[in-house]
């Protein structure tokens, strides 16, 4: 035997021997205990494990479905925010103090419609997920969208816009942005 194997072999023999000795001592000390197989207890354990497994499966499935719904809804709210940003860019034409050109009017109306339809998509998504609209105060989003639309395209459309009109547009834009942010958190925390 090589010199390097001696010590590990001795250690292994000692450990195995020690374990066998412990088992022998245990069997001597506890020899009065009778071991038997209880079918009822085994069945109880199996049923318990099965029920636990089913509960765990149902809970994890429900949680993952809800998480997927939440991610989809947040994506739709994100689309509405993108539409709002696009509308804000188009609305900057008001700041010039001149009447909007035909091209600018069309761009504004189209951007406003896009925002309206993305807000509608949020409503469709919430209904699809069977979420009560009043629980998330969805009407506030709709109201903010309508107020923004009216501030942009009610008289004196197509301009020129005075300072009070521009201030109304800015206030309505901020309110809309805040409402979409609130909606994102409300969806996430539901």
């Amino acid at each position, binding site marked *: 035997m090589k010199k390097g194997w001696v010590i590990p072999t001795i250690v292994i023999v000692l450990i195995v021997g020690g374990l066998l000795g412990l088992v022998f001592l245990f069997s001597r000390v506890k020899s009065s205990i009778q071991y038997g197989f209880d079918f009822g207890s085994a069945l109880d354990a199996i049923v318990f494990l099965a029920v636990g497994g089913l509960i765990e499966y149902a809970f994890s499935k429900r949680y993952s479905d809800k998480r997927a719904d939440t991610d989809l809804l947040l994506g739709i709210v994100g689309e509405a925010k993108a539409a709002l940003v696009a509308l804000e860019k188009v609305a900057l034409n008001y700041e010039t103090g001149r009447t909007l050109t*035909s091209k600018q*009017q*069309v761009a504004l*109306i*189209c951007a*406003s*419609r896009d925002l*309206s*339809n993305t*807000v*509608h998509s949020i409503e469709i998504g919430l209904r699809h997920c069977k979420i009560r609209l009043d629980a998330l105060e969805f009407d506030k989003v*709709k109201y903010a*969208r*309508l107020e923004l*639309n*009216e501030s*942009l*395209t*009610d*008289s004196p*459309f*197509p301009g020129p816009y005075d300072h009070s009109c521009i201030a109304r547009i800015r206030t309505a834009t901020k309110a809309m942005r805040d409402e979409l942010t609130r909606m994102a958190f409300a969806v996430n925390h539901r």
Partner: protein
Amino acid sequence: MIAERIEINIAREFTDTPGPRKRSEGDHSGEEFLNDFLRPRFVAARDAKAKLCINLDGAIGYPTSFLEEAFGGLARAFGREAVEQTLEITCNDEPYLEEQVLKYIRAADGTR
């Protein structure tokens, strides 16, 4: 024979780029639509006890000033109740437009 439905498709019959509130503010205004299209057909529909169906599809979109002048103006002229009973609004392009128009009709009674 009395027609049960009279239809107006704004994009096809009037314009696909609705404009401002008053004629003086630009082309295809709400005032022009009200006086030249909506009012005569509304009277015809009301007298025939028919529905006047307004289809808003096909246009690029509708400025608030156009909608308020046209539909709010109709309610100011004929009364909210008569307008609500006679008009039917449809818009698949922008679903919220329908309730927006109804809001202007309901708010029109003596508000402007």
